[in-house]
């Protein structure tokens, strides 16, 4: 009887430790990746048959049905340029220039990896929809307060965090060869609600 209880305890503890540590590693880092450009992160093997088991598990949790990098490169940012978590109660300026791809977009997702509810159903801006500055660059305003243009609402729950996904569809060959050399948008925090 005592031995049986010990065995049950071992299995329960091992299950909590084993499955718990796996879920922590998989869920804790979004899509993750081995390439970082500022706050943007990607992996060369997302969606690929060469993906390692951890990348495959992260894709399943945070990016199911992602395409391989020859077709689309996905960058994800959960932090701003200063390395601080993106918070729904703060306003950020995402600034950059057209990216080396046939089409690109920036989309905001909540902690649950789904689009964030807002009255205007605004979730993203892309190469076809963003309003550009005179020099061709763009500024996307991400925050709880409506901006004049290129606004992606965060939902405004001050304690919540969110992430941005940058998609590059049909990336140029140089971008596929070396995603770390792509000039990606900057994410600068402007203000935060108290």
């Amino acid at each position, binding site marked *: 009887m005592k031995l049986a209880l*010990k065995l049950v305890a*071992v*299995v329960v*503890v*091992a*299950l909590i*430790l*084993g*499955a718990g*540590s*796996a*879920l922590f*590693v*998989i869920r804790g880092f979004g899509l993750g990746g081995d390439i970082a450009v500022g706050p943007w992160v990607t992996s060369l093997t997302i*969606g*690929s*048959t060469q*993906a390692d*088991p*951890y990348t*495959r*598990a992260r*894709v*399943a*949790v*945070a*990016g*199911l*049905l*992602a*395409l*391989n990098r*020859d*077709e689309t490169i996905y960058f994800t940012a959960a932090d701003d340029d200063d390395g601080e978590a993106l918070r729904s109660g703060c306003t950020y300026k995402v600034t950059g220039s057209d990216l080396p791809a*046939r*089409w690109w*977009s920036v*989309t905001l*997702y909540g902690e*649950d*990896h*789904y*689009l*964030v*509810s*807002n009255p205007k*159903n605004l*979730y*993203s801006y*892309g190469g*076809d*929809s963003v309003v550009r500055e005179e020099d061709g660059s763009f500024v996307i305003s991400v925050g709880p307060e409506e901006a004049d243009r290129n606004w992606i609402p965060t939902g405004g729950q001050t304690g919540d965090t969110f992430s941005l*996904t940058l*998609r590059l*569809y*049909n990336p140029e060959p140089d971008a596929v060869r070396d995603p770390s050399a792509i000039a990606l948008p900057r994410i600068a925090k402007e203000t935060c609600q108290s």
Partner: protein
Amino acid sequence: MKTWPIWLAGTIALAAVFHILTVFGLPYGIMNRAMAGIASQAGGVNKPLYPERATAESRGIVRPSPDLLYTACVYDVSVQPVKLSSPVPDTYWSLSTFASNTDNFFVVNDREVKSNRIEIILAANEEAGSGQGIPVIVAPSSKGIVLFRSLVPSEDLREEIDAKRREANCEPL
């Protein structure tokens, strides 16, 4: 004799096994759930589903793109091959196939098709799908997901692109 080192080592070894099982099993579990969701809405496997534009209410697949219109189906080539067909619109468009472990094992886009229509056979092996005069893609798993993506570059074009993507089809050969 002290036995606690043995119990500790056994617990750690078993924890490592559970860790590996979770990492390897999670993709299959999540894909199975996604396939069940698509198949139930489409009315079964090898049948297309035409979801509306993704919004905050969309809870089927994580990180959907609101700029695309999707057509999805669950393929099952265990009994017979599956024929995939679609018109190819004048915008970014792709047909991609995903194995039961989430791997994207095939993708083709509008620029690569060089035609205004595509037909492809998905089969368990090369022989099963041959003889139709249509390219055959061998699926590494008997079940998986087919996803057609169509970019909507402006609202003016949404109706036209939506009509075309609803012509995309998955059907047993």
